[in-house]
């Protein structure tokens, strides 16, 4: 087992951490997909999790909004805190957690409803008190999709292109006004132009939201994120400011991965 170079203490103690992970392990029917991972997510920053296929990064991400609750033989150990509160505590409502921590998936998954209804559904079901129309417009603007769809809000979301659908899914997640936005390889099913569009979007969103992005695209991670966690085979190998991790990594495995020697 390679030694971990986690600069968690030095990197993030001074910062305002919105999410804290401590000794998190996830097992599916006894097989550990995530082993003893600890790092923090800084507020209003973009943290990326990189690593080869199967290293457990998506599994870890899904713990953050308790989406692993749906997998019956998954067991989670360790501590995950949002604003200092343990999200797996018995009195905590998983549904509530997801109001604060939203998610965008790898393949765009808009509902077979109108564009408007897609964005409005979450808040409506949650009895949003203000004007839904304004919320929808605001969210679509934040997702940089408003101009393209403002004249056809009642059209089916399935008529949009792949890149547009993904931005719609982002708008849909933002409509819940979360604090954190989790993104699970959001660009891997998209063409380069749409990918660039969404990367630009992330910079805009950073000021209001915290973003955690899982990506297998190292260039993307180095372009976009402030902090990066590198995982391999369920273990956290290194966590550092992105600039440092990509140019002067502390761990040999990290260096091998980011220079393309494997992965």
């Amino acid at each position, binding site marked *: 087992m390679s030694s971990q170079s986690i600069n968690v203490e030095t990197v993030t103690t001074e910062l305002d951490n919105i999410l804290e992970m401590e000794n998190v392990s996830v097992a599916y029917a006894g097989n550990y997909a995530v082993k003893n991972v600890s790092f923090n997510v800084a507020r209003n920053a973009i943290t990326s999790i990189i690593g080869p296929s199967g290293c457990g990064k998506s599994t870890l991400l899904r713990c953050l909004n308790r989406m692993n609750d749906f997998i019956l033989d998954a067991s989670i150990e360790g501590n995950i805190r*949002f*604003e*200092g*509160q343990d*999200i797996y505590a018995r009195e*905590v*409502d998983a*549904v*509530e*957690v997801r109001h*604060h921590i939203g998610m965008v998936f790898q393949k765009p998954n808009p509902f077979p409803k109108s564009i408007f209804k897609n964005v409005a559904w979450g808040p409506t079901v949650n*009895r949003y008190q203000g004007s839904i129309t304004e919320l929808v417009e605001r969210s679509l603007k934040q997702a940089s999709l408003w101009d393209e769809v403002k004249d056809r809000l009642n059209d089916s979301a399935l008529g949009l292109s792949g890149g547009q659908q993904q931005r719609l899914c982002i708008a849909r997640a933002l409509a819940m006004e979360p*604090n954190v936005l989790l993104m699970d390889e959001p660009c891997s099913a998209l063409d380069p132009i749409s990918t660039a569009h969404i990367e630009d979007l992330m910079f805009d969103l950073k000021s209001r939201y915290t973003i955690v992005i899982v990506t297998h695209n190292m260039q993307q991670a180095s372009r976009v994120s402030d902090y990066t966690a590198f995982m391999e085979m369920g273990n956290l190998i290194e966590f550092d400011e992105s600039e440092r991790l990509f140019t002067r990594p502390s761990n040999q495995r990290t260096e091998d991965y980011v220079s393309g020697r494997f992965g």
Partner: protein
Amino acid sequence: MTASLTRSTAKQAHHMRRRHAKARVFAKFCGLVTWLGTALLLVLLWQIFSDGLRWLDIDFLRSFPSRFPERAGILSALAGTLWLISLVAIISIPVGVATAIYIEEFGGKGKLVKIIDINISNLAGVPSIVYGIIGLTLFVRGLQLERSLISGALTMSLLILPVIIIASREAIRTVPDSIRHAAIALGGTQWQTVWSHVLPASFPGILTGVILGLSRAIGETAPLIMIGALTYVAFVPEGPMDSFTALPIQIFNWVSRPQEEFHELAAAAIIVLLVVLLSMNSLAIFIRHKMEKKLQ
């Protein structure tokens, strides 16, 4: 600004609790309703067995129907049903499987295949009594086959043909093309490929379809009534041209009578019918299992 995982106002907390309660009630409701269906089956079986079991003995199987409940039996009906299944199997299995083979292997994607396709799915939805009328007009009267076993068998075969065709087509479709390509590459003709490779591979699925079809044929009453299966038959049929009765007809006849003993006799006959159906299905599962093992 830090957020909190708990709702800030009592109203919001109350609202969340309501939503969760609704979800719990809904899940329980769906579960309850579903298990209701299972309970229904048990009630049905209990009713049948509690009514009919005491009439079920060897004499019941060996006697002909009678005005007197104590002497009544299902010999003629059982014989008729067994004759019927055999004839229907002989007629419908080859035709049904052949049709499926033709459509899937030789038909291509032309218009003819499309027409046959639509045709079959429509035929599958035609009420059984309409088949009965056709059987009456075409076989009994038209071909002058009278109210015989063969008329009944032909009518039933038409009825279950769509079932067999649809199931066989599904089974043939799941056979991967790689098997066909390999056989043709070895120099086999198309028919040889089908006979030696595709059919054996799709056999379990075809068998399931056949059993499904035959089960329907055994249980259907309306078409048999239409073609004139008799309700009082005191002999065992000896050939396809003989008139006959069948288990469902006998059951129908007994249930229609006001006396409660005949209702109970009907229950006993139902038990026999269900046993026949169960045996057929179990045999099919057994054969499938053996074939699937062999193919492994």
